[in-house]
């Protein structure tokens, strides 16, 4: 399999003492990360720049005039993480590259539905196509995978397109209220999105509705009575 090489660069010493770059990888890739020294350090005779991942130092640094780079083959989850280049000197100046899987956005606002009704929860990952989707529901502090073939009359998972998944929950009850997770499996790892479901009973909106209807009825009565009153007044006049 041939991969295109991706290049990422950071300038050392530009703003503050540490710089960060987040790199999202949807699938396996070849990456070259390089750190370039800013001009204000050009006076240094032999600058020392080291590359580290976590605490391990990485060898095989290729150095050109002012930049230090490493070549990486990212093939699975273990290759992801934070890679940093550090300039040794009076102060340590470093730049960090964060290699990560794509994040799934959940919904912040809860999805509101009613008892006995159906709720549809949607998760999507538009920029990167996941290999598979899994849904979890939260029971206490545990996350339990939802098996829609086992509970076919309650749950239905549909993959609408490669990037979008729907979880349909039928015959809602109060117990279905809570937090749900949709997990996307990518070549390089998994990523979760959070969704909240709120299940209400019919009484909840019914109360304001009845209040408003009562108010309307009262107004109708008032106008009606006023009309009768003014008609009587006209008759007597």
């Amino acid at each position, binding site marked *: 399999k041939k991969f295109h090489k991706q290049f990422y660069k950071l300038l050392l010493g530009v703003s503050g003492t540490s710089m960060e770059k987040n790199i999202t990888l949807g699938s396996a890739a070849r990456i070259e990360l390089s750190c370039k020294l800013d001009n204000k350090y050009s006076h240094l005779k032999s600058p020392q720049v080291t590359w580290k991942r976590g605490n391990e130092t990485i060898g095989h640094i290729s150095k050109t005039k002012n930049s230090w780079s490493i070549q990486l083959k990212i093939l699975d989850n273990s290759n992801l993480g934070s890679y940093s280049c550090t300039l040794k000197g009076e102060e340590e100046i470093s730049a960090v590259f964060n290699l990560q899987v794509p994040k799934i956005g959940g919904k912040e606002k809860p999805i*509101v539905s009613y008892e006995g009704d159906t709720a549809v929860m949607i998760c999507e990952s538009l920029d990167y196509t996941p290999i598979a989707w899994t849904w979890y529901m939260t029971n206490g502090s545990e996350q339990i995978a939802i098996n829609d073939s086992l509970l076919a009359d309650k749950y239905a998972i549909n993959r609408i397109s490669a990037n979008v998944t729907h979880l349909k929950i039928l015959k809602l009850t109060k117990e279905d209220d809570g937090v749900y997770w949709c997990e996307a499996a990518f070549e390089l790892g998994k990523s979760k999105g959070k969704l909240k479901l709120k299940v209400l009973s019919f009484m909840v909106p019914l109360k304001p509705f009845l209040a408003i209807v009562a*108010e309307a009825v009262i107004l109708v009565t008032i106008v009606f009575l006023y009309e009768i009153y003014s008609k009587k007044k006209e008759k007597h006049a």
Partner: protein
Amino acid sequence: SFPGERKEEELEAPAGEKSSGMEAAAGGWAWGVVFHFFLVNVLVMGMLKTFGIFFVAFQEEVGGSSEQVSWIGSIMSSLRFLGAPLVAVVCRRLGERPTSIIGAGLVGGGCLLSTQATSVPFLCVSMGLLLGMGFACLYQAAAVMTAKRCRTRLAFSNAIARSGMGLTFLIAPFTQLLIDFYGWQGTLLIFGGIMLNLVPSSMLLRPLRARPPQRSSAKNRARGCLMAKEDPETLDGCLDETSPGETQLRSAQDLPTTEGVMTVHGRDVSGPVNMSALEGFEKRPMDNRSSEIATEAKRSYKSLPATEKENSQPLLDFSPLKDPVFGIFTWSFLFSHLAYFVPIFHLVARARTLGISSMDASYLISVAGITETLSQLLSGWVADQNWTKKYHYHVAYLVLGGVTNLLCPLATTFPLLMTYAVAFAVFCGGFMALVLPVLVDLVGVQKLHSYLGFAAFFAGIAAIGGPPLAGWLYDYTQTYVCSFLFAGACALISPISFFFEPSAQKWKLKKANL
């Protein structure tokens, strides 16, 4: 006639009290009608505008492609216009108040029924059809009642009522809040309840008093004359009024210079009226009290002997379609509606493509809304001053609005776009406020139902075609610029028909004289 007159003087005293009471009541009821129309505007337009928020919720839960779901909104807003001729018939049969109550019931019922929706076709009927027809009923009844009750201040009252649309910007966040709390079904339930509030306000549409019987007509006439004692012009009118030979021709000739209320009598064969006298009456910037007196007097004139023909209009009255004045009005109405709706749809989108954030874009909309409301009020007030014929203002606003739209593509930064939005809102508010008064001027109040019905029908065709056309323009040219140019062109085409108004009136006169 002397003994007769003395008798009438004796009747004056109790009649005087009664009439002042009735005048006050009439003025009060006119405000009630304006308030109801205001409420209708707020709720109807609010519902139509917030449909977009429901759109997303429907799509997720009920399923269906975005095209299918947008049909619901289209049916809802277009039926509001297309249903008008049918509603006009119902209104004439049952009266405005029952029609309005039916409309409120349809809207409330439709909202409640929609909470049970499980599919898009269901929603099309429950939300699209029921709400659309309900809106048409409410709108037609309220508009015609306003025209009937507020004779002198029609433009201003209409503008006040329409300013209700300016408040609709509050409804959108309110709807969003409700949806976050109760979901779309709960929100629709609550909206149904709110719409039911239109029932008590519909009851404010008190029917104008029926024609007084023959005997009291003389008393009314006398009262009208005696009330007007301070006003020498009208006193002349009262004394002059007898001759049955008083020509309609003369009254019709006054048409181009008076408010169209006078054209009412063009249809009645009995015309023992001196129009110019009443005209003088009307032109005085008095409040509704005087207009009620004039109405009373006029009505009593109508019921005088000579040849009194009953209003024998057929139930579905197609005569507006044969009237050139109607053609003029509808042409203008149609194009001006196209010119109004399209930029509104695409203003935010255009702002986005120019890189303006959605917060700033929503400021554009809010500012435009507020400006439009203020401009409507000002335009209505100015038109009521009667410095010139109302449709001259209408034409001026349309032309200026068209020019503004044509210049819009030049607005590429936020300040420029804001300037465009404000200018557009000013001119739109101006011409929108005058639509009903201009129609009343051209056509009169008696036939208003049929004319308004059919005019709204044609506007409905524009309303259906407008957004898809605009969307197609965007898809074809990949820029929103064309929508604004199109709207500008429409706005400039629309007033052309008014240039034919004087010749159309002359044609009508000739026809009437034959």
